[in-house]
């Protein structure tokens, strides 16, 4: 409910989302309710630890796979793809 924030646009799995500047990619993925990875037994997972240790939040960012999205901020025009 921020009143004075700059919104930026990016896509998550092709879907356009708007987030406040300073939002981590993982937080954007959580808000979009997208899963990040599929575990070896086929479970859909989502960002979990928020501090770069559990690696559940890995996703492809601008074509680069395995990015730890809780440790990176959203940028305008970013393309995020999850499993």
């Amino acid at each position, binding site marked *: *409910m921020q009143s004075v924030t700059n919104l930026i646009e990016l896509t998550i799995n092709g879907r356009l989302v708007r*987030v*406040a500047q*300073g*939002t*981590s990619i*993982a*937080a*954007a993925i*959580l*808000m979009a*309710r997208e*899963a990040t990875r599929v*575990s*070896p*037994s086929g*479970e*859909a*997972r*989502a*960002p*979990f*630890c*928020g*501090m*770069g*240790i*559990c*690696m*559940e939040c*890995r996703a492809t960012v601008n074509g680069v796979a*395995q990015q730890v999205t*809780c*440790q*990176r*901020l*959203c940028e305008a025009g970013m393309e995020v793809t999850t499993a």
Partner: protein
Amino acid sequence: MSALFDVVVAGAGPGGIATATVAAEAGLRVCVVDGNVAAGGQIWRGHTADKDGSLAGRWLARLHAAGCTVWQGANVVAAPAERVLRVEGAEGVRDVEWGKLILAAGARERFLPFPGWTLPGVMGVGAAQAFLKAGLEVNERRAVVAGSGPLLLAVAAGLHGKGAKVAAVCEQAPLARLMKFGAGLWRHPEKLIEGLQYQVGAGFAPYRAGCWVVRAEGRERVERVVLTDGRRQWSVACDLLACGFHLVPNLELALLLGCEVEDGVVRVDARQMSSLEEVFCVGEMTGVGGVGKALVEGEIAGWAVVGNAQRVAASQRERVKQMEFARRLDEAFALREELKKLPRPETLVCRCEDVVHKALCTRAGWRDAKLHTRAGMGACQGRVCGAAAEFLFGWEVRDKRPPLFPASVLAMAADVEEGKS
């Protein structure tokens, strides 16, 4: 090629910031390496220098004014040679050579497995706080906060403040132990006030001690959580479950270097020096005690590396007081035995490689478990399931093989300075 610094600080939380600032202000060449997008660690995530005159803002301003070299988004992945750390980040792979090394890697949450803990919508308690600071909007969401530790109330207050409906806050430690802990806080009035602020704010949610999560349920994401007080069970609807069991120090780098570790923390002397000459350690790695402890230890290490014995001596009283607080925290939030019974045979313990409890509980120890089940061999390298296995099975979990974080092949293949590998 490696850059050479008088002091290298691994970690830019309050402890690392304090050491780096004191050392740089005294004229030493200091490099700070930190995995986050900005300095501040978990506790000061999202704070900026001098924004509001807060403690965090003042320290961050001092750090930036002191003229340190700060590498953000960079993790130490290996120690390829004597006095050299290998760092990987957005700028690629770099080696950095240190005259004195400060370990300030902080702590992470302890997660314990229970049925449903891998469902989307389930996250850590510190995680929820980190996500809130990183822009997560939770308006209209129904949250349960559970587990253990002083973070629970702070995070519940944070969620409530951002518009979530906090349906329950469940602390596993029994009320009697919390009362004893609270009664001992007269020595730390600032912490008592902080706690009271959260208590007042927490009027919105039922806080229950001696109460814990049995399982989380839902089809594709968490829809409800089953709670117990050990006598009866009840179900609470939610779409966000924050559950974490206090903190465990990040010891990987200390173990890799060979620092002596005792009772789960790095052993240090009154100057914060570890068992290794010129390797210092500050903050949560020497015992989980929060910002106050990290700051005083960080300053002491800073004074020690610049050779100011007087200032080191002058801070000893505060240091001892903070260590005592850390001990009281450990005691108050010690885990109850019932939590060992939460995983069912088919509950995942290792989230990376999907290793179930029944495959682990018959193993002889951590090494045996890793060799036979792949637990702890995935991307988190046992950071999550290792701490759980220590508690669940009583194993000693001490991994110390590089890379400390998932690293590129380049990082592992890169040549170190000539004649040192």
